[in-house]
């Protein structure tokens, strides 16, 4: 079975590498990291991910701007997007059933098992 392709867009270098290690250890995912929001669309066009994990607050381009760009890309129409953020607490996300403004969310810090469970839910949705 082909591995699901996940692009992680987040400016926290250490955090992205840790998540990549954990997801790839699971065996079902191929993970690409992009630490610059401004390059996210370009990387996504080239990688064609099944799912993009997108940070909200980034110095060069925030998650909302990146989302708007990604939504313009015809080649990414089938790509799922999930926000991953420390801005909202785990409790805050749970109180909104993991969705804010119609977009799936998960709060940092996140345990690998919970992240994988949420990734699978979003991919199947």
């Amino acid at each position, binding site marked *: 079975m082909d591995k699901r392709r996940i692009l992680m867009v987040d400016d926290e270098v250490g955090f992205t590498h840790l998540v990549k290690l954990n997801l790839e250890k699971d065996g079902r995912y191929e993970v690409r990291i992009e630490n610059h929001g401004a390059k996210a669309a370009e990387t996504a066009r080239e990688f064609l991910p099944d799912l993009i994990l997108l940070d*909200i*607050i980034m*110095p*060069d381009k*925030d*998650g*909302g*701007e990146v*989302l*708007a760009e990604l939504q313009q890309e015809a080649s990414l129409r089938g790509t799922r997007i999930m*926000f991953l*953020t*420390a*801005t*909202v*607490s785990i*409790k*805050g996300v749970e109180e*909104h059933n993991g969705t*804010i*403004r119609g*977009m799936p*969310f998960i709060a940092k810090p996140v345990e690998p098992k919970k992240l994988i469970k949420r990734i699978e839910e979003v991919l199947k949705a």
Partner: protein
Amino acid sequence: MVNFGIKEIQKELKTALENGLRQQFGDLMGGILMDVVNYRERVEINSQRLRELVENDAVAVVGAIVANRADGALMLMIRSQMIGSALLSDRDAVVRWATDGLNRCRRVAGPWSDTERQWQWVLEDPNRYMIYSRQLKYFLNQF
């Protein structure tokens, strides 16, 4: 001249407080502290109520960013989150919001584009900002 309306008196006192803060600490620090005075009257530092307000407001900020809004209202929400985080002694959150405010004010039109120095002041010493904000709020809540 004597004002008898409560709102007028409150306005007079706020103006006096603002002038006093600016006189004592200068326009930059005085202006930043004045925002603390205006932040959610009566809410107590470290309280569960404050924690809930900050958490709810965070969802609103995230919703605005996801909607790709970049305006004065979003900047005001970010400033509020920075103040709320300071009153909760959440240094990491203060730094996160101040950093975002600094990055974002450069891209927003209107008066917020002139606030770069304010965010920088907070980032220069987040502990100083938290101590002054918390002590000011503590003092105001005594009355």
